């Protein structure tokens, strides 16, 4: 009894700790500008306002950033997951020459800090006309997320007994049909987890977005946020309001897939 209470309290403390920055984001976003500095540090302002939100939505370029981000992150998530599912399946099921090398190479790509790669990537994309374009960002994000996502998917597929697709093949399916009709439906939790992971990674990516995109037209939302910082001041209220709005798709997405996510993580972890 005492143990469960202690357990609950510990979890509550942890949740409070990790959610506090989000709470602060929300608090600042509804604090009127004139109270921001005058009221000092308090948990909730004496007066709240939605002015920042309406300004951000109506008068700033934020909706465009938001849309760009949605396009980039959504497309990246879908492309990456499709590629990773195929790759993960091959890693999980097939024995082929150089498999160990391939897996090693995939791991190596994960070892470099992204900053190191910005310049060469820019050099590669520029002649292809892929700088300052959303497509370029999608290509880069997909390339960077595929290795890890493949390992993630491999873990999920490893948890599905190969007997199942063998049974399907004996029932009259070819390997791809068995993959599509038997393995993919069973791998949905893993696919959802991968989608979620890649979506959030792309949604919050900043370095490439900053380097490959110039001008507000193609900017994604993390870059757009910087436009609230001017030379002389930072418009905290508007910036936070934009931040709150940017959280919405990620939250919605996770709400949608959280059932699969928990299932997927435990399946991958336990069965492995």
């Amino acid at each position, binding site marked *: 009894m005492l143990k469960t209470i202690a357990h609950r309290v510990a979890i509550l403390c942890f949740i409070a700790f990790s959610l506090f920055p989000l709470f602060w984001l929300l608090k600042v976003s509804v604090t009127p500008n004139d109270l921001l500095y005058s009221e000092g540090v308090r948990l909730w302002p004496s007066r709240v306002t939605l002015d920042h939100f309406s300004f951000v939505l109506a008068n700033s370029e934020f909706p465009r950033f938001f849309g760009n981000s949605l396009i980039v992150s959504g497309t990246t998530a879908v492309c990456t997951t499709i590629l990773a599912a195929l790759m993960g399946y091959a890693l999980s099921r097939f024995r082929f020459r150089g498999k160990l090398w391939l897996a090693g190479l995939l791991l190596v790509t994960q070892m470099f800090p992204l900053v190191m790669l910005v310049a060469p990537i820019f050099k590669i994309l520029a002649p292809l006309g892929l700088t300052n374009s959303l497509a370029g960002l999608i290509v880069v994000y997909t390339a960077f997320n595929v290795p890890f996502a493949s390992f993630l998917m491999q873990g999920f597929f490893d948890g599905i007994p190969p*007997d199942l697709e063998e049974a399907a*093949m004996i*029932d*009259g399916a070819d390997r791809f049909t068995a993959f599509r009709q038997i393995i993919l439906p069973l791998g949905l939790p893993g696919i959802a987890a991968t989608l979620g992971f890649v979506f959030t990674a792309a949604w919050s990516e900043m370095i490439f977005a900053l380097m490959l995109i110039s001008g507000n037209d193609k900017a994604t939302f993390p870059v757009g946020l910087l436009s609230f910082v001017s030379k002389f001041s930072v418009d905290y209220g508007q910036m936070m309001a934009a931040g709150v709005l940017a959280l919405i798709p990620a939250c919605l997405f996770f709400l949608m897939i959280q059932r699969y996510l928990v299932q997927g993580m435990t399946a991958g972890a336990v069965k492995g």
Partner: protein
Amino acid sequence: MATMEIRSARKTYGTLCVLEDINLSIGDGEFIVLVGPSGCGKSTLLRMIAGLEEISAGEIRIEDRVVNDLPPKARDIAMVFQSYALYPHMNVADNMSYSLRLRKADKPTIADKVRDASAKLGLGALLERKPKALSGGQRQRVAMGRAIVRQPKAFLFDEPLSNLDARLREQMRAEIRKLHRALGATSIYVTHDQVEAMTLADRIVAMHGGHIQQVGTPLELYDRPANLFVAGFIGSPGMNFVEGAVELGTFVMRDGTRLPLPEGMPETLGGATLGIRPEHVTLGEGLAAEVELVEPTGHGIILHLRLAGAVFRVLTTDRRWLTPGDQVQVGLPAGALHLFDESEQRVAPAPHPQQ
């Protein structure tokens, strides 16, 4: 239904050879059981027939057609897996009809066939259930149903009963036998359980270390095991063995105990092994032995005796009250003796003169 022919089949994984020189002809409608200890290559052979493993060398024919390079779907066989391998996201009816749906059978045909198969297996009330809501025995039945629903050329079974408890296994064993009689389909059944092999098979293929040791009817393997391995593997409790040599028509055990051999056995043979089944040893007149252990089975008792320095098991329905330490006399009837030479092969007695 179909005949099958396996010629000089081989299977290697890299440098590891797990099956070598496998030759087997299977008649139309025959029930063949592949039996052998775990790791001897039974599943691998079955999977080669199914098309789930490549054939490294040799040839497999189904109905005179070489199937070496055909994918599983083109071989028209059905398989029941040890794990059952039911599709977890489909209900029982969908599991059973999956093969028919892949073949684009029309709805009424599918419904008919699923109804037939589920009636045969007593699954009628479970058609809407998902596999995880079924008991082990029910899952096993669904796996069988999935195999019979599309009337394939042959059935393959890979230890289908080994996840069931003893009672259920016995019951399913009888049902598989009945089903085979009703459908008459060529079947290949893999098991490590020699009782299953004896009770189910038309012919048993005993395997060991990637080689076929003997092919024959259950009684042939029981009465005339081709080598020491088969002799020890078939029958429970296992055959008793004593090592020694044959001199002047007499078997001389290591400790000097002598035992006359029946007529027709070789006169001399160095390094021989004598075998006799526990159920053929008689209590009464004969060699002196000491009781070491008494195991009642209900039906009878299994006595563990020390005889000529070796442990000997005797199966008897005689309920006489024996306790460890008692002295008994055992008879080893000449007609029940099996003799094996140095290379562990059976030495057959020459046919009896008057036969």
